[in-house]
């Protein structure tokens, strides 16, 4: 089972909550995904409003509520937002997003590291969203991040694992769990991330804007399970030359 900080998760699929056509669709998609960790942009919810439609969808006894700092331009803003949210009851877990470029929403590595250092000292369980930069991932791990969340492609692009090579290095080197976040456009992208050894994936746009978001959530759940099983089973090597599946000539003539 997947373990992040002191919590275990049966499902390796995490869900984002943006861009859905209604809170009802979101609720059904969460159920169909089997996910146990749901991230919500603090900018979208009012933690002090008991009638907030998104917060009402999230049964916090069933799902780990992972608030995120989407919209923060620098470390100062992200840290302030996190502290205010915790004071309003959002808990210790935090998906750290520092995205100063409103166009690409790509994360700022320098501010993300600064904010992680500060929030870890504050007792937060920090999961930083990062570009697929292996050295940054190690720096964040050393700073006390509970997991790292490299992107497969920029948020909302559905481009899939275009950062595959760097993500493989991160998976190879990191001691903390690696969650591929952002850009996964199809269940096959999620399966690929899992096959190469990601500990989990986080999906939002590909589900929320699908023709049938609920069915797509279930499809992602299956792909994540299949990808994980393939990783555990040990994938065969790819080769450009054909090789027979039953060897014609073994090495059984060798005596000792």
């Amino acid at each position, binding site marked *: 089972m997947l373990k992040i900080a002191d919590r275990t998760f049966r499902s390796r699929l995490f869900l984002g909550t*943006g*861009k*859905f*056509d*209604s*809170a009802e669709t979101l609720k059904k998609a969460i159920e169909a995904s089997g996910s146990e960790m749901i991230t919500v942009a*603090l*900018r*979208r*919810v*009012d933690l002090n409003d008991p009638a907030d439609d998104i917060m009402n969808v999230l049964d916090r006894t069933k799902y780990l509520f992972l608030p995120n700092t989407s*919209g*923060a*331009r620098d470390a100062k*803003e992200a840290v*302030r*937002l996190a502290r*205010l*949210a915790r004071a309003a009851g959002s808990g210790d877990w935090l998906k750290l997003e520092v995205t*100063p*470029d*409103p*166009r690409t929403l790509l994360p700022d590595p320098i501010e993300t590291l600064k904010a992680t250092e500060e929030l870890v000292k504050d007792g937060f369980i920090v999961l930083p969203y990062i570009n697929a930069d292996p050295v940054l991932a190690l720096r964040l791990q050393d700073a006390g991040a509970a997991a790292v969340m490299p992107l497969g492609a920029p948020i*909302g*692009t*559905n481009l899939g694992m275009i950062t595959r090579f760097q993500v493989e290095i991160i998976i190879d080197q990191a001691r903390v769990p690696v969650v591929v976040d952002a850009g996964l456009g199809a269940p096959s992208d999620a399966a690929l991330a899992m096959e190469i050894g990601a500990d989990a994936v986080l999906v939002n*746009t590909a589900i*929320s*804007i699908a023709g049938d978001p609920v069915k797509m959530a279930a499809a992602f759940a299956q792909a994540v399970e299949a990808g994980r099983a393939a990783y555990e089973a040990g994938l065969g090597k790819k080769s450009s030359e054909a090789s027979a599946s039953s060897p014609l000539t073994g090495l059984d003539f060798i005596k000792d």
Partner: protein
Amino acid sequence: MFEIPSFAQLTDQINSCTDEDIKRSLRAAHLSTHDLAVLLSPAADKHLEAMAKRSADITAMRFGRTTQIYAPLYVSSFCTNRCSYCGFSADNKIERRILSLDEAEAEAMILHHRGFNHILLVSGEAPAKLGVDYLEKLALRLRNRFASISIEVQPLSTEEYARLFTAGITSVAIYQETYDRNIYDRVHIAGKKCDYDFRLETPARAAAGSMREVGIGALLGLADWRAEGLALGLHLAWLRKNFWRTGLTVSFPRLRPAAGEFQPLCEVNERDLSHLIFALRIFDPDVGIILSTREEARYRNGMLGLGPTRYSAGSCTAPGGYSDPDTTGEQFSIGDQRSINEVCAAIKQKGFDPVRKDWDAAFQLQ
């Protein structure tokens, strides 16, 4: 500094486009300003359906199945400018009013209780009556009750924008009205607004004053809409290159009936407006597009998801109009009279989520 080519040049560029150009530009992954000229050309008119489709796909991908909701709050109708198209023009005999801070706060609280989290403070240009001090004080009173506060007031300096940002104002809308210098000079008869260049440089000052979002726009009905759209696209592209941290929005308010004798200088119908919106969306997938209550409910319902990302609702364009619905002295008469709840119900009906909160006061607490 940024400069806009003459409208004659822009029109030549637009009119030289062919059907082949359009097919190429519609397929392009990243569009240049030349592609924008192509999409705005008369040759593109018969490709409106294909443009709508592409625009809708891009909008869904970037913004999801959502539409943000906001309301304007008119705080003053005093104005020292004479602009031939505007109801607040200094020479119009209308009842003028500036809200006291208490009155403005009361109006804001009415919007708050109706369910608005995003408000836009609007005023005419009369700095002696309504300047940065007023806006700063009002923002400090409202900042904890609203997710975001925007302003659409006279052009200010970078230092003044920075001050207002610290007080809790997140974004600035400042429309050039028309990018055609000749027509600009003709319709701006007297007052500070006559300075085309000072106005053109205002979005850059707002961005330099660290505003999170800057809205630019053109008032349709003054100059040729195709050239206007291209000029706006050039402005947008320039702002993107120079202020990468600033979110950008565009708006194409069409002239509405208002006090004064003014008649639009050129016709812009709903088809033209749609064409402009689709072209700008395809050109810039990330720009926020505002469709206000100037347009009728039927049109606004139809455009949901096709390009616009932000709708106003339940608007009144006269200061004090929310607490007293009989208030006169509006800037213009609106086209969509529905309440916020009616607008939200229509948005849900079309399969979109009306988002009432997509920011947080916590970002602004310094």
